């Protein structure tokens, strides 16, 4: 039995049936949301195993007589196309989303309007899964908008506070303009080439690359940099991520900016435009933005006093690392360095999703128990919330890149490849890490300092909040124990499958 369509069917079923299940009661609704996201996790892990063991690009054509396999023939139908990168992303999304749902059962207990909350969180998951699965550029736009609308609504979910509303409005207007740019790029591509299937588009583009396609590429990359929060346009991110409920911040920072931004940049740059455009130039453009993002994001994180805002700026900085790896992978396409850099970028995407989800959950636990996220009032938290502090230490050490944890391996791949490619870029990456270390050391210093009166009254959060956090801690430590096995066994093949543009095209076009 083919599992691929179930990755979409199960969340869709959950979204549609949640209003009906909600009539039964509150508990039933929570259990149903948990069950749906758990089932999605199971299906995506099977998908990842299938793709990883065969190392072939899966193709599924909707509504066709023989959906699986090669040879779509006349490429008009919507195609789902899954290579190893997509499968890894899908698994990460389902994993973090499952833990976020589990976390929010206790975290959101005192909020109202929860029937909308669970529907929206499943819609967000559905949109991200659709983005990573699809092989059709307009279908990608539809899923991007599904994801974006859900995240606008979730950022502004607590509409009785001005903070959420202001952040939601900023996010919404910037995001809508970016979406319009992306749609314009897609429209120009359609007008030039008359098709929307990514593989067929790549084939046509290789034969005839025109000025219109270049303009379309500029619009697409611009819109996607907006969505991923690269530096000249990162302001909405620093407002939106802290204002959302913490379980949503974990998903926004961990997943949305990657699935809707970085992943799609990689897919479009490699698989769609890869055979036509000058990859060296494109790579250097992305490297430029990456260096800017890396320095500014990490440096801004140092001066923040709001804990969630610090984490959000740190997310900007880490997106810089991922974009740097991607840019080097494009600029040094075809060489060993490029492959290592791409693998590092993919590895860091997964790692950062796990680490940042953990850190935002810790921030949410602190906010839930103490009612504040101002770092000046949080000193001495280690006395009263030792388990939470332990989780934070693990997450912070991993994001800095200390050796026994998972962040080390991915950052090492990025340092190595950037130093080999251009020593200057390696220096910039190290500087970024220095800023990042300073920011997190400051938070740790606060946590381990002398306890203030307010902190002394705090207690540990409940089991339903601690358990997802400790599952993430376990994942970090487990991935830290086998860094090179994972990078050799999973990430390098993913990078080489991404770099194998012809293979991606041939999987759909069937050797035409």
């Amino acid at each position: 039995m083919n599992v691929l369509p179930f990755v979409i069917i199960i969340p869709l079923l959950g979204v549609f049936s949640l209003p009906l299940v909600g009539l039964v009661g509150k508990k039933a609704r929570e259990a149903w949301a948990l069950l749906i996201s758990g089932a999605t996790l199971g299906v995506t892990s099977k998908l990842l195993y299938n793709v990883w063991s065969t190392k072939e690009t899966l193709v599924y054509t909707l509504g066709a007589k023989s959906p699986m396999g090669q040879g779509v023939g006349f490429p008009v139908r919507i195609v789902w196309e899954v290579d190893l990168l997509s499968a890894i992303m899908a698994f990460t999304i389902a994993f973090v989303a499952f833990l976020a749902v589990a976390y929010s059962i206790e975290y959101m207990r005192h909020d109202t309007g929860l029937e909308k909350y669970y529907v929206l969180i499943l819609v967000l998951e559905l949109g991200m899964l659709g983005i990573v699965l699809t092989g059709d550029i307009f279908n990608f736009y539809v899923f991007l908008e599904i994801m974006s609308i859900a995240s606008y609504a979730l950022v502004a979910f607590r509409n009785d506070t001005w903070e959420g509303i202001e952040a939601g409005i900023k996010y919404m207007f910037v995001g809508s303009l970016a979406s319009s740019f992306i749609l314009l790029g897609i429209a120009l591509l359609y007008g030039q080439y008359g098709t929307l299937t990514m593989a067929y588009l790549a084939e046509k583009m290789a034969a005839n690359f025109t000025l219109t396609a270049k303009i379309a590429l500029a619009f697409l990359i611009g819109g996607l940099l907006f969505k991923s929060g690269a530096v000249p346009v990162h302001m909405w991110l620093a407002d939106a991520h802290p204002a959302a409920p913490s379980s949503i911040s974990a998903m926004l920072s961990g997943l949305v900016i990657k699935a809707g931004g970085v992943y799609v940049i990689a897919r479009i740059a490699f698989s769609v435009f890869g055979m036509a455009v000058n990859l060296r130039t494109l790579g250097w453009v992305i490297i430029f933005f990456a260096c800017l993002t890396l320095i500014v994001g990490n440096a801004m994180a140092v001066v923040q006093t709001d804990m969630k805002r610090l984490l959000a700026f740190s997310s900007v900085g880490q997106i810089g690392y991922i974009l740097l790896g991607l840019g080097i992978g494009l600029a040094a396409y075809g060489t060993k360095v490029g492959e290592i850099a791409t693998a590092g970028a993919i590895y860091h995407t997964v790692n950062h999703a796990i680490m940042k989800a953990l850190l935002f959950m810790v921030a949410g636990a602190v906010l839930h128990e103490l009612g504040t996220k101002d770092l000046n009032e949080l000193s001495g938290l280690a006395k009263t919330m030792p388990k939470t502090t332990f989780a934070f230490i693990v997450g912070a050490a991993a994001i800095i890149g200390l050796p026994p944890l998972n962040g080390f391996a991915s950052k090492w791949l990025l340092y190595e490849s950037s130093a080999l490619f251009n020593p200057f870029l390696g220096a910039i990456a190290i500087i970024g890490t220095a800023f990042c270390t300073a920011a997190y050391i400051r938070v740790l210093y606060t946590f381990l300092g002398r306890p203030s009166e307010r902190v002394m009254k705090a207690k540990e959060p409940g089991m339903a909040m601690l358990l997802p956090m400790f599952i993430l801690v376990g994942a970090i430590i487990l991935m830290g124990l086998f860094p090179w096995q994972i990078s050799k066994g999973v990430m390098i093949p993913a990078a080489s499958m991404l770099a194998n543009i012809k293979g991606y095209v041939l999987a759909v076009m069937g050797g035409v």
Partner: protein
Amino acid sequence: MIPFQFITAFLLIFMGVYAFLYKRNLLKLILALDVIDSGIHLLLISFGYRLENNVLPTAPIYTGYETVKAPMVGPLPQALVLTSIVIGVCVLSLAVALTINAYRHYGSLDVNKLRRLRG
């Protein structure tokens, strides 16, 4: 005759982006987004309307189920624009709802008043 539509579409997009950047009223920004989207829709639809040998193309749904004799308009952009219209109305409803909420908190529709968050 095709250039009319392209020129109009690009002018609409340009006007929308101009209004988006220089207006400060939230509802005006929403209307500007609507104008941008309309421009893109017009662009897409005119891509599907190709003039071949000076014969006007027709939509397949007009000619019935028998074989189509005139050249067809492209059905794909119409599907795209429909989807895009659906998405547009979702975004617009959400934006208006958020705007009403913002007015309750700030007492103004001015974008520049929404500056309480730093950054």
